[in-house]
């Protein structure tokens, strides 16, 4: 595994770290990964998860880059007048440009948690986006979600005690109380958030269209939701259900890890996440290599 600094972007204001496999670290698939910021946390990711993921991916033969969007972490603010959302997409495209030139890769998987997942989705119009790893992306609760959540409450002996404790803490002006009425910080249901990031959930049809773009390229998407988001999604099949009217049932790999929190605080949760992503990536790369070979045979994609 080799790590190098990357300075890129229009005014070389963006800072990233490229992690590459060394010879013998497995096949060199035609895919590279771009690991995105979660909120305002710099490019190492929450709990250093981007660093861990980059090194695990390199062990499996994948190149990746973790980097900071303009104005976040080590990257300087952009001189452009784009909105934050549009600038994020421009920065991610710049990251792909950089890796494409440096590593001769033309297909990319975008990995993001929370705002990172939102930014990954927003970049799907770029033809190079071949995979999405969305951790705590947007969620679209249904009546089933709400019924199941109420059932979970009734089965949880600690729920009432926790609820009362949170209300008291909130009344005393303490930490955020993620109770029923409190805003889950940048949660997948989410129109509100902590910090500077206000999550604006797109209409379901738009979200489905973004996923479809990636899938129609032959790529893949996976989503994971946590036990911090059970209010808005609490069963792996729910994403399937809401995507079914758009012809996407069974097309997006979805997991709900109810004992894991929003930022994968427990080390065991981090380990499971890394295993899941790497396994998914290896499977996707097999498909990508096949698509590349087919493209070459037909004189198309290479």
């Amino acid at each position, binding site marked *: 595994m080799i790590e190098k600094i990357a300075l890129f972007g229009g005014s070389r204001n963006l800072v990233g770290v490229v992690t590459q496999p060394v010879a013998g670290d497995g096949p060199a698939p035609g895919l590279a990964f771009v690991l995105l910021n979660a909120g*305002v946390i710099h*490019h*190492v990711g929450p709990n250093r998860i981007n660093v861990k993921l980059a090194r695990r991916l390199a062990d499996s033969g994948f190149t990746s880059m973790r980097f900071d969007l303009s104005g976040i972490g080590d990257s300087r603010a952009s001189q452009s007048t784009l909105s934050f959302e549009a600038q994020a997409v421009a920065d991610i495209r710049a990251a792909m440009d950089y890796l494409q030139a440096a590593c001769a890769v033309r297909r990319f998987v975008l990995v993001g948690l929370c705002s990172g997942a939102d930014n990954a989705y927003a970049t799907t119009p770029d033809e190079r986006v071949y995979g999405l790893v969305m951790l705590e992306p947007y969620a679209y609760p249904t009546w089933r979600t709400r019924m199941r959540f109420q059932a979970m409450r009734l089965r949880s002996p600690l729920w009432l005690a926790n609820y009362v404790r949170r209300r008291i803490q909130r009344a005393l002006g303490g930490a955020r109380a993620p109770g029923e009425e409190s805003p889950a910080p940048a949660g997948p249901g989410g129109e509100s958030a902590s910090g500077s990031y206000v999550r604006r959930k797109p209409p379901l049809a738009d979200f489905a269209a973004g996923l479809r773009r990636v899938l129609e390229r032959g790529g893949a998407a996976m989503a994971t939701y946590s036990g911090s988001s059970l209010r808005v999604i609490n069963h792996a099949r729910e994403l399937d259900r809401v995507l079914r009217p758009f012809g996407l049932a069974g097309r997006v790999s979805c997991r709900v890890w109810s004992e894991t*929190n929003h930022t*994968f*605080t427990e080390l065991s949760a981090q380990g499971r996440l890394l295993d899941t992503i790497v396994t998914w990536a290896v499977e996707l790369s097999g498909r990508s290599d096949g698509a590349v070979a087919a493209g070459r045979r037909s004189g198309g994609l290479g």
Partner: protein
Amino acid sequence: MRPFFFGDSKQPLFGIYHAPTAKAARRTAVLLCNPFGQEAIRAHRIYRVMADRLSRSGFHVLRFDYHATGDSSGDCSEASLGRWVDDVLTASEELSDTAGVSRVAWVGLRLGATTAALASARRPAALSDLVLWDPVVDGLAYLEELRRAHVAFLAEDLEFPPVHPFAAGTAETLEIDRALGFAIPPTLRQEIRALDLGALASLRAPRVCMIASIMTEEMGRLQTALASREGQVSWKTLGASEAWNSEQAMNSLIIPVDAMNAIIEWLEETR
């Protein structure tokens, strides 16, 4: 601002050097020493802003990641205070070489302050000034703080939190092997547990600035212990407690400006 890898090429450290942007560069460089774990995540922005301000004031500045942290090499399971003390010395030398100055001031926050104090006892010739911001004075109390924060955070963040195994005792009776997303491997845990007033009181620097967000009992004991040492110790108490390990702190954009101003002003007094 120039990111780079330095140190042992097989186990490189990641650093970001901020060259002076003032017309007249100062002849002192400033090394910023990270705290541990989740506090280091928050410190990133604080240090970025501080480094920018110091460089505008004419200082050369280096912020860096210890081994097994941030972008530096190493798995979290390799985290060790002893290694981090070595890393402070390596980084200080790197900064001195890069900047072409012989005088280096160190600024440490929380466990980074304690690490810097321990490194100062190794007495590098170049160390001129030492700023300790809310240092960890009592290692066991710090582990207990981390344990409580870990349990409280998960209870807060999960809709249906189970009873956490860390709720069954204290840092004295349990092996706290992780906190707020970061591993505390056995070596690091033992090193932290062993930290006491003596570790900080052994610091060696001509000028010392202590920044206390709030004057706690243990900071009071530290003040007494440092009163008898040779050299100048300047105390600045800000009167507002920083909840370094709170949930709000984790994704916070808020910079403790009063502490930062106090540190920069004190460093600017140097020359």
